[in-house]
């Protein structure tokens, strides 16, 4: 059941929210196409506009904050420096190490605030849609992160083979154990990392928002169609909605942090010197 049935048939029966609620129709003219056996919209959709908006906002804000360059910063510059300094020092210098972290700071900086703002969009009134509940948008970002840490590793270790050896052969292991460990390490360090990175962000955003829809629509349903004592439960559901919304704010910030933190950790592991 989905939005479709709700829109087309405003029946008395309750329709729980599902993934279909995140497949918003395009803003402009709409066509469909089939990809991987699934029919998809061909057009400009809300999440697409929002992801562009987020990039514009992040750039404009930090450009304005960085433009003044005063020794004693004003409010805007102070906030900008605080945000940049956080990514630079906490996620960059402390994890990658002071030797070569500056190379990756632009990437980590853009990544963190890009993900953070897109996540916060889920709570900002009128936007109220988690951009990264769309798997495609997450996969693109994860692909970049995967390429960054692997390419950095290949460069740092001096060649693809040396890098693969660095990532898959644990130090101090000899003989037949290697036959067991190398595929495992390869699987974990090269293949699974991007999957977990993508799923963690995507699933958190999707599930959190489904929960919010559930409380909002469920509360409304109970209030409108409930009988007698069931009606007040709708109010309770709406109160729960507010509580969950604050929890979601935390999750949104946390997921942006975790995504960037893991990207930094992967880079750090890839370029680490042979131990």
């Amino acid at each position, binding site marked *: *059941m*989905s*939005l*479709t*049935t709700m*829109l*087309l048939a405003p029946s008395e029966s309750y329709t729980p929210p*599902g*993934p*279909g609620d*995140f*497949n918003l*129709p395009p803003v402009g003219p*709409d066509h*469909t196409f089939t*990809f991987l056996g*699934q029919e*998809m*919209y*061909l057009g400009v959709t809300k*999440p*697409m506009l929002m*992801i*562009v908006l987020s*990039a514009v906002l*992040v*750039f404009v804000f*930090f*450009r304005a904050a*960085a*433009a003044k*360059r*005063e*020794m004693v910063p004003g409010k805007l*510059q102070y906030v*900008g*420096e605080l945000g*940049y*300094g956080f990514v*630079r020092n906490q996620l960059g210098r402390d994890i990658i190490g002071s030797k070569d972290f500056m190379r990756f*700071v*632009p*990437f980590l*900086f*853009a*990544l963190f605030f*890009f993900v953070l703002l897109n996540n916060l969009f889920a709570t900002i009134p009128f936007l109220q849609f988690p951009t990264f*509940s*769309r*798997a*495609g*948008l*997450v*996969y*693109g*970002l994860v*692909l*970049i992160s995967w390429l960054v840490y692997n390419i950095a590793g290949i460069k740092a270790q001096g060649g693809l083979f040396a890098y693969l050896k660095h990532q898959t052969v644990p130090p101090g292991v000899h003989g037949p154990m290697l036959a067991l460990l190398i595929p495992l390490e390869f699987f974990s360090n090269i293949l699974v990392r991007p999957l977990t990175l993508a799923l963690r962000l*995507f699933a958190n955003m*999707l599930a959190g928002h489904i929960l919010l829809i559930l409380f909002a629509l469920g509360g409304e349903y109970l209030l409108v169609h409930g009988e007698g004592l069931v009606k007040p439960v709708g109010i309770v559901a709406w109160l729960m909605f507010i509580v969950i919304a604050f929890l979601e704010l935390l999750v949104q910030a946390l997921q942006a942090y975790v995504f960037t933190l893991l990207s930094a950790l992967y880079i750090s592991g890839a370029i680490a010197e042979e131990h």
Partner: protein
Amino acid sequence: MYVIPLAEKLNPLLPHPIEIVLSIVVFGLLYFLAKKYVLPNFEKTFAERTSAIEGGLKAAETKQAEADAKLAELEQRLSDARHEAAKIREEAREQGARIVSEMREQAQEESTRIVEHGKAQIESERQQAVTSLRAEVGTLATSLAGRIVGETLEDDDRAARVVDRFLADLELHNEATDAGSSATGSS
């Protein structure tokens, strides 16, 4: 508006291809813009601030050292001045004492001199008075005696002899009474 009748078939894990490309392009653009226009400014500001703070600290240290040196110098000068003042005071005291004693001596001398001078004057005046008295007394006595005796004592030689003899007798008499009085005074 056409809505896809997705129903339960929708798999949220299947990506929208345009979204993958869009995400990469948008993030890539943000990355390059941030790298080119945002980060250098922040880094420059950080570096300038660090150097400004370090420079400020260094300047403050220099100033502090200068102030300390100046303070020490001033204290040195002050103690020198105190020393000097004490010396001058001591000298002044000595000098004052010397001047006072000199003045005293001088005054003593002056007073002695004045007294001596007075004594001498008195003596000479007395001598003068004695001489003139002796002459006058002689003349007076002679003329008096002449009148009394009735005989002229116009002969000066005789008169002078008589006077001298009288005076000598008188002096002898005086000395005898002086000796007598001094003898009674001493007894």
